[in-house]
């Protein structure tokens, strides 16, 4: 049996080894991913994002239990938890497992911690491939927890079927809620820490922001097109309150994606993204193999000395 076949049969050590290989982009790992690709496309990929300290890991812990249901031996929930790599040492402290202790020895749940390794946008470089592997080896749900995200870490929305944005009371006023960025990507908005004062006010300002969006949409669209209305779910991850309502909202969104054709559109975007990224990388490699290192050094020196603008330097390299 190949490693890919063992992983597809559910062998956890093989899955773990493949994840490492894919993360380090070894040819053995990437070949295995090619082999498994036809099996993918069945999982529901769910992105969980929000500011640091909003309770993402604690909520993922609860949500994974709600989605998995009774413990079984099937592959139910895979969790990919991303934390930042230190730009100084290249090392990382991956601490999301601390809040996921209820899941540590469940045979139907698999948690993998990943460091960003220099990628921006809230995900690690290989998160996309990692999610693909978890999907291909048969996990029903793939939960991706991003690094603590502020306003512009929106890559997750292009990867996940359903994006859950978590806010917590005390993190900003209603003007923050109107800004572009992370709130725009939410398919489901969560106000976590609902046991704290200010939670109702936070939910209210988010609701007003969503209403304004709805009103503006009605002005431009004549008929009600049956689009998805982003729900606001109040949760307290600490006490487990609201978690089953969140699981229901996630399942409803999945059903909506299938019925409305929106899911099909998003798969196309995802496929395009992956293809375009690989094409860019291949083009760069090809150029690098054919280029003259001396000329590169030459234009670099001129750019540093302000004799040549970077754009003109690139024109020269490609002339």
């Amino acid at each position, binding site marked *: 049996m190949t490693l890919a076949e063992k992983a597809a049969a559910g062998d956890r050590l093989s899955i773990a080894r493949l994840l490492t290989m894919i993360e380090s*982009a070894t040819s053995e790992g990437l070949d295995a991913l090619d082999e498994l690709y036809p099996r993918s496309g069945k999982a529901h990929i769910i992105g969980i994002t929000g500011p640091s300290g909003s309770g993402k890991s604690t909520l993922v812990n609860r949500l994974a239990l709600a989605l998995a249901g009774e413990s079984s031996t099937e592959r139910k929930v895979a969790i990919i938890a991303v934390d930042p790599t*230190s730009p100084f040492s290249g*090392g990382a402290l*991956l601490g999301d*497992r601390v809040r996921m202790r209820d899941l*540590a020895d469940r045979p139907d749940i698999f948690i993998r911690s990943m*460091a960003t390794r220099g990628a921006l946008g809230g995900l690690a470089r290989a998160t996309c491939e990692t999610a693909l592997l978890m999907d291909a080896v048969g996990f029903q749900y793939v939960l991706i927890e991003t690094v603590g995200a502020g306003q512009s870490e929106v890559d997750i929305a292009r990867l996940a079927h359903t994006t859950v944005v978590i806010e917590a009371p005390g993190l900003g006023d209603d003007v923050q809620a109107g800004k572009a960025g992370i709130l725009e990507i939410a398919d489901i908005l969560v106000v976590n820490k609902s046991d704290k004062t200010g939670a109702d006010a936070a939910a209210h300002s988010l609701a007003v922001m969503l209403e304004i969006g709805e009103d503006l949409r009605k002005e431009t669209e004549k008929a009600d097109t049956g689009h998805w209305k982003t729900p606001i779910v109040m949760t307290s991850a600490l006490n487990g309150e609201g978690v089953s309502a969140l699981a229901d909202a996630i399942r409803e969104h999945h059903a909506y994606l299938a019925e409305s054709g929106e899911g099909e559109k998003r798969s196309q975007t995802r496929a395009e993204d992956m293809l375009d990224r690989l094409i*860019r990388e291949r083009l*760069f490699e090809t150029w690098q193999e054919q280029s003259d290192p001396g000329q590169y050094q030459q234009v670099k020196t001129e750019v540093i000395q302000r004799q040549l603008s970077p754009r003109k330097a690139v024109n020269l390299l490609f002339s």
Partner: protein
Amino acid sequence: MNFQLRPKGIIFIKQDICEPMDRKIRVLIAKPGLDGHDRGAKVIARALRDAGMEVIYTGLRQTPEMIAGAALQEDVDAVGLSILSGAHMTLVPRLLDLMKANGQDATPVFVGGIIPDEDAASLAALGVKAIYGPGTPTTRVIEDVKKFANPV
């Protein structure tokens, strides 16, 4: 692919934009048992991070089953345990058995904490790579992990 002929600047750009990434050493730092003092574990976790490793920290009060599960899912190159409770002769052999059953008997295990000399000898005989008492310099731990972890 041949990198040697390329000037340094290009290699840097390449790593920034596309694979291959270098393989990082991944280490699990865990606190089995019931004692609640995790300062030592946090110091080691931080020191290994600053040495460029990816450190997965489990938090307090882990059972050997939870630690073995984490070591498996994370496919770590080394496991470090911090034990101050005196229960090391129960917890460590149990963890080693579970890791063996998972096919991870080649993954090195290190133990830090208050371990009497005679127990240290027994743990070493079971396969624990090194045992660190109070006052061990972090540089020694970093060197050992680098030496034994050897990622493929």
